[in-house]
């Protein structure tokens, strides 16, 4: 049972972080390869609040997420401000996450608070379990759904499709991008906090470039402009390697190869442009039966 619990909890955490990346990369079209940095920030802030200040863990997670969100604006504002090329932002996210990891790895103390450097920072265990994660995932998915179907979400999609046209239609580019980035970093921060609570400690080694690639992979394979796609793939990407541990060393190689294959042959991903609602099951069923029906007739 413990083993299945582990997969469910880690899968759920990955789903929450991937929802954040989906809002930013999938919906707004901004490429990020440094989301692990936001996870680390949110994770450490919530861990410190829980351990040192006895804050309730739900509040600590929210504050950690908000901290990551505010920190994301430090790189968001300079790179979005003057309509500079999106590549600046991607480079800045990579640099940001590396810088965060570097600080956490080397800083033994912040003020007179011992955060342990590369040894990690231990926090009380046993605060979260499967139901808590399940609720967190549902709440996260609900709010993500509300965001992408709102006016703000439509603005994001407009920016992803054509920035200049979106601006002509009156979309405030800077504000919309910063909103998407804030929410995205918030999700990552909460996921980082949950990760620390599950392992009962925080370590800079959780938040390497592998973690960022993992999140990007979930969104690319799951589908651009879809929430349900990345949710499914984010979970599978965690669950499958646990089951197929033999392939561990081939995992990143396979990811990279699949990135290219998906972009060349099916750039919309598994469920690209599919909205998350119950209709999607109905439509999917209809599509499946519709493609089979004529074939069946031709045989007879």
């Amino acid at each position, binding site marked *: 049972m413990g083993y299945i619990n582990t997969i469910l909890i880690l899968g759920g955490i990955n789903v929450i972080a991937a929802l954040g990346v989906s809002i930013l990369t999938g919906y707004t079209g901004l490429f990020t390869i440094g989301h692990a940095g936001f996870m680390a920030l949110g994770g450490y802030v919530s861990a410190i609040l829980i351990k040192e200040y006895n804050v309730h863990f739900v509040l600590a997670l929210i504050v950690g997420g908000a901290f990551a969100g505010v920190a994301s604006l430090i790189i968001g504002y*300079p790179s979005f401000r003057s309509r500079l090329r999106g590549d600046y932002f991607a480079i800045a996210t990579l640099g940001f996450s590396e810088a965060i990891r*570097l600080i956490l790895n080397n800083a033994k103390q912040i003020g007179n608070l011992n955060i342990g450097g590369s040894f990690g920072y231990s926090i009380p265990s046993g605060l979260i379990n499967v139901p808590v994660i399940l609720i967190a995932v549902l709440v996260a998915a609900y709010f993500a759904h509300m965001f992408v179907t709102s006016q703000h979400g439509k603005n994001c999609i407009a920016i992803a499709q054509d920035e200049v046209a979106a601006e002509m239609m009156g979309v405030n580019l800077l504000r919309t991008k910063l909103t998407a980035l804030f929410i995205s970093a918030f999700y990552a921060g909460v996921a980082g906090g949950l990760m620390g609570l599950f392992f009962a400690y925080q370590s800079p080694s959780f938040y390497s470039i592998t973690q960022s690639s993992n999140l990007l992979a979930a969104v690319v394979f799951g589908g651009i402009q879809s929430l349900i796609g990345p949710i499914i793939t984010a979970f599978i990407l965690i669950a499958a390697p646990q089951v197929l541990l033999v392939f561990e060393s081939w995992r990143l190689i396979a990811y*990279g190869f699949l*990135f290219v294959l998906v972009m060349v042959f099916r750039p919309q991903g598994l469920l690209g442009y599919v909205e998350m609602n119950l209709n999607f099951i109905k439509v999917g069923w209809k599509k499946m039966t519709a493609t089979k029906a004529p074939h069946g007739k031709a045989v007879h």
Partner: protein
Amino acid sequence: MDLFLQQLVSGISIGAIYALLAVGYALVYSIYNFTNWAFDAFMAFGAIMAFIAIASLAMPFWAAALLAIVLTIILAVGTERLAYRPLRIRQAPRLFMMISAMGVNLTIVQLMNKFFGGTFRKFPVESVQPIFIGNVSIGRMDLLAGAISFAVLSLLWLFLYRTKWGLAIRASSIDVQTASLMGINNDAVAVAIFGLTGILSTVAGVFYGIKYAVFPMMGTITIKAMIASIIGGLGNLPAAILGSLLLGVLETLVSGYISSTYRDLFSFIFLIVILLFFPNGLMGKSGEEKL
């Protein structure tokens, strides 16, 4: 003062390596408008091929470097062919190009990790006595790295501005579609561009390997080259070179006088400051997105 001069020389030689990398990014960027994330994998690939040629095949340094350059050119052109060209023909969004490039990067780096091993290895060249000018010691390899880097960059400049091929590349960088209407073979230009990036990345990789170590993740320093080209001004070759030298020198001074641990942190903060106050880089004209 002596220490300062020594740091300066060291900074210029690492800056020259950044310049090679920054120019490699700028070449692809100026024509295809996306950051070629696979570039750092090319760099590590070139260095590792040279390493294997020297360590296992006992080839002399120059022959090994040449072999590594040829192999990296094949890799770079092959990548363009398999991972970028299908997207380019379909006129896919830049986001897809970047994801595809990231995929190539992951695959190549992790394959090298698996078969070459992730450990740091010393590049197999015998260490030579540094040259002393007064009290300042200058590593011969630093000098060689600097000299060869500038030679390669000068040759590149001659190629771009004094040959017909260079004219074709420059025309494509202004407008790929119109250039192809004027009879320029797009696919041939792509081969030339990616061949050039293969040369640049291998030269940079070999010298970086000699200066520090050879390992599959060594390409992560290309982020410095990207930072340098942003500091200079993106898509502008002389600016990229100047930005690289500036970053190389400043970084070496920081690690010499403050702390080598926070050298990378400094580069990143420098980037943020530049983006805040000089959004187009120090020398860039207008970095705004084209329509």
